[in-house]
């Protein structure tokens, strides 16, 4: 089990008290994976949320008729991905793959459902985290698109394939079109 101190330092879990974090830490399975391990695969459904404890995970998406693989984000410790899988089993929109050795804490949907039974407060808190995250991502994307509509270079934005890509991925605080429902990190935008 990873220490409660680690979970306490994860901003996405802010608001849970020590006891609740202890329950969560007890339910989450910590596993080590080798380089190249695929946690989530684009086009496939998933049922597990991950929190990166050590190492890096690359987020890629298959792009274009030639099916090129494009990296759209690189995640580090304390970032979560696949969170939406806890409530929605539709196909994932990006692939998340270990870059080097990684350690993650995993929570699958059946454990989350168990958590709902065992501690509805924690499950509710996680549900709110997911909902807020989706809401913020949605707001962020909407504002980005609104800005493009009112800019004088919408056609340039259309031409720029690297500029505007909505995926279910979190791209980090300094990138345009960062984030979305799948991911939440310690430094993500508030709005």
């Amino acid at each position, binding site marked *: 089990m990873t220490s409660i101190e680690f979970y306490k330092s994860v901003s996405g879990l802010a608001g849970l008290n020590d006891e609740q974090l202890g329950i969560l830490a007890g339910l989450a399975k910590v596993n080590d994976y080798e380089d190249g391990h695929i946690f989530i695969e684009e086009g496939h459904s998933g049922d597990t949320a991950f929190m990166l404890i050590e190492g890096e995970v690359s987020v890629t998406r298959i792009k274009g008729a030639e099916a090129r693989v494009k990296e759209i984000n690189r995640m580090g410790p304390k970032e979560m991905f696949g969170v*939406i899988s806890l409530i929605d089993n539709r196909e994932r929109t990006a692939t998340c793959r270990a870059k080097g050795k990684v350690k993650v804490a995993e929570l699958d949907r059946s454990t989350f459902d168990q958590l709902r039974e065992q501690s509805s407060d924690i499950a509710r808190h996680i549900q709110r985290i997911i909902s807020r995250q989706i809401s913020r991502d949605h707001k962020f994307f*909407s504002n980005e698109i609104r800005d493009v509509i*009112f800019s004088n*270079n919408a056609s340039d934005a259309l031409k720029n*394939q690297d500029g505007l890509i909505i995926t279910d991925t979190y791209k980090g605080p300094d990138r345009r079109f960062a984030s979305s429902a799948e991911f939440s990190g310690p430094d993500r935008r508030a709005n």
Partner: protein
Amino acid sequence: MTNTDLKPVLPSLHEEMGNIDFAIMQQFIEDTTIARGEAVINAGDEMNFAFFIIKGKFAIHLISDAGEKFELSPAGPGKWIGQMFFLEPDNSSVTVSALEDSIIGRMSKDAFDKMSSSYPATADKLLQSLSIELSNRMRKAGKLLFKRFAWDQVDGAEGEDGAKHWFAKVYCEMNGFSG
């Protein structure tokens, strides 16, 4: 409290919500009649409620920070607008005004908080449902953009107006105004 049977009005919520949840929700939703030409919300106003259209049709204008207007597709019955604002109030980016005499079902942040206290399970299901819907909309919008980039390799032939309308289409998809 609304007397409207919510189940047929909100088909997208069916998967998560049972009859009892819809009955509970009814207690926390207010029917509001909106006369033709009247605005439900103006861009820039604080939006601390969500609403769905029960009857009628609404014009939606996207407004820039500088006050420029861009007309989006109109919205009709069943559409949720401001889906999550009762979780996180914020200023509206759009002005929504009735194109004909209409009725909306409105859930304020206060009403949602009350429902969360009294009926937490129903509030959870509603949140879950709305989250999934929002996530699906983003997914669809992402696909639209990605397809566009992947297949079109845009050459700019459609010009600035065409590009703006394309993004407006994506915006509508994301915000549930289309269809």
